[in-house]
């Protein structure tokens, strides 16, 4: 299997050193871009690759880059989203700590393509040690002329800074991230205008996920067509999946788009321990709808196939749950997360997530009232599509899908009155 992103993972971090990176083909894509390709030609390759954003929304990367106006009074920026806080996801962590130069190279190529001089990596504050790894790598890149006033003698100036977040999931949302980078609370901005037009400090800004940018060097060396051919017709290339939960070998796996989910679970991850059966899978981070074992059998890991069972590829966080798992409890856990992370800006999400959790709490104590399951569903419905940013939807969808597919786990939590129990006995 071709490794686009993880080819240096076996070096266990040695590739953090620029000499090791260079010996293994590093910075050749940047040299090629600057010496042989015009910015438009870089954009062309990225378009041809069918690369789609790996941060969750799956937006075509080439198209996003093409939205950036050529001429702009304000400076343009490339911002890497390294906030990685979608529950179930730990892929950007390894991409950065095992191969930081690959990301740096991808960013400089993107900056060259868009003519952006100052660029930022926004990394979650908890990843402090990774921030230090990145800063070391950046310092090396400056020393060797891959960053700085005159990159590889081309006349192109490119600077790169690492900016730490401070513990707020909402700052992974691209406009909240920009607010945060400007030194404010992380409240999302109204879209449009999209960041590609009005972004950081009002300038056109491309925000891309770590994994998206890390794929760029390979695309430049091997060509967009070759990248696309690794995956399916509509989902080009390879994708990283973080598999967690009830599998023998949890971890990060890079596989071609369209890889069967059960193959990932059973072969790559060694199946479910103790011979237990599969109950459910969350295929793309906690924000996406849950799917049953039966649905999992049919699913391939690409945007379209996961969509056929009503879920999404999201961030690639695959959470596997065996037959001993209580889906009520897992959904309660995830709801706590969204309640905690709601930024409080809009009412449906701020109030709705709190109310949802309140109902979850009483059902947790087996004190659910008749009608509480419907109440949960209805509350979720009142958040869905009515909140200011997609976090509201992310809180609602897991609840609705869990109720629909694992209703019995919820019904068990309803405290039945004596009359009802007697009736049931009759």
């Amino acid at each position, binding site marked *: 299997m071709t490794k686009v992103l993880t080819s240096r993972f076996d070096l266990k971090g040695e590739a953090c050193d620029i000499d090791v990176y260079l010996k293994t083909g590093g910075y050749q894509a940047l040299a090629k871009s600057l010496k042989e390709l015009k910015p438009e030609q870089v954009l062309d390759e990225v378009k041809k690759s069918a690369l789609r954003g790996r941060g969750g929304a799956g937006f075509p990367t080439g198209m996003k880059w093409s939205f950036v106006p050529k001429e702009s009074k304000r*400076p343009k920026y490339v911002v890497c989203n390294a906030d*990685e*806080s*979608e*529950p*179930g*996801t*730990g892929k*950007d*962590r390894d991409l950065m700590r095992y191969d930081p130069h690959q990301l740096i190279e991808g960013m400089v190529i993107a900056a060259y393509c868009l003519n952006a001089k*100052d660029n930022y990596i926004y990394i*979650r*504050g*908890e*990843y*402090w*040690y990774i921030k230090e790894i990145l800063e070391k790598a950046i310092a090396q890149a400056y020393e060797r002329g891959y960053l700085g006033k005159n990159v590889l003698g081309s006349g192109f100036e490119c600077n790169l*800074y690492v*900016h*730490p*977040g*401070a*513990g*707020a*999931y909402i700052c992974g949302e691209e406009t909240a991230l920009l607010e*945060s*980078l*400007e*030194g*404010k*609370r*992380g409240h999302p901005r109204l879209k449009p205008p999209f960041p590609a037009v009005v972004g950081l*400090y009002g300038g056109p800004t491309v925000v891309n996920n770590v994994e998206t940018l890390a794929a760029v060097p390979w695309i430049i060396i091997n060509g967009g067509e070759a990248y696309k051919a690794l995956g399916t017709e509509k989902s080009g290339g390879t994708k990283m999946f*973080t*598999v*967690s*939960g*009830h599998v023998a070998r*949890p*971890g*990060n796996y890079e596989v071609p788009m369209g890889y069967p989910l059960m193959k990932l679970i059973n072969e790559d991850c060694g199946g479910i321990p103790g011979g237990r059966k599969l109950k459910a899978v*969350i295929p793309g981070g*906690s924000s996406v709808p849950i799917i049953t074992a039966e649905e999992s059998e049919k699913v391939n890991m690409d945007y379209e196939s996961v969509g056929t069972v009503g879920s999404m590829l999201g961030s690639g*966080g695959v*959470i596997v*749950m065996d037959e001993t*798992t209580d889906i009520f*409890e*897992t959904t309660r*856990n*995830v709801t*706590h*997360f969204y309640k*905690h*992370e709601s*930024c409080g800006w809009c009412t449906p999400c701020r109030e709705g997530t709190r109310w949802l959790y309140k109902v979850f709490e009483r059902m947790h104590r087996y004190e659910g009232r008749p009608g509480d399951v419907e109440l949960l569903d209805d509350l979720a419905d009142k958040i869905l599509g009515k909140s200011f940013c997609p976090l509201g939807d992310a809180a609602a969808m897991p609840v609705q899908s869990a109720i629909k597919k694992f209703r019995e786990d919820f019904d068990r939590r309803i405290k039945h009155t004596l009359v009802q129990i007697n009736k049931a006995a009759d």
Partner: protein
Amino acid sequence: MYTESNEKKLDEIISHYPVKRSAILPALYIAQDEHGHVTDDDIRYLAKRLDMRVNEVEEVVTFYSMYSRKPIGKYKLQVCRTLSCMLQGAEQITEHISHKLGCEIGGTTPDGKFTLQEVECLGYCDLAPCLQVNFDYHEKISTESVDQLIDSLK
């Protein structure tokens, strides 16, 4: 106000941005590093240093969960409570630590050594359950491994 090296660091950080205010998150880490938590003086000082109003700094401090306005323990033990860690028994480990330290979740031991917190996803889902002690990650923890860890910190 901060040590010479931290003041230098702060100058360097400010130079990364076209507006000073952008440096507030990294600056608050420096404040916290020096004083253990963000003090009223820090807020006033940073407001001046970064051309912000005092209430603007306060707004930022209270929004982000990694800053504390109150003194906390020398070691901040943060156990991840989110789904992947929960599936691997994080809750029992938190309870175990709580018992061992005689300290409630969210509380600090009387000697000021440990603060125990439950936090949301730390990005170590495939290495669950996980615990962060100040900035250090500990992966695939168990009741035995946290016992050892805590004893070594005492």
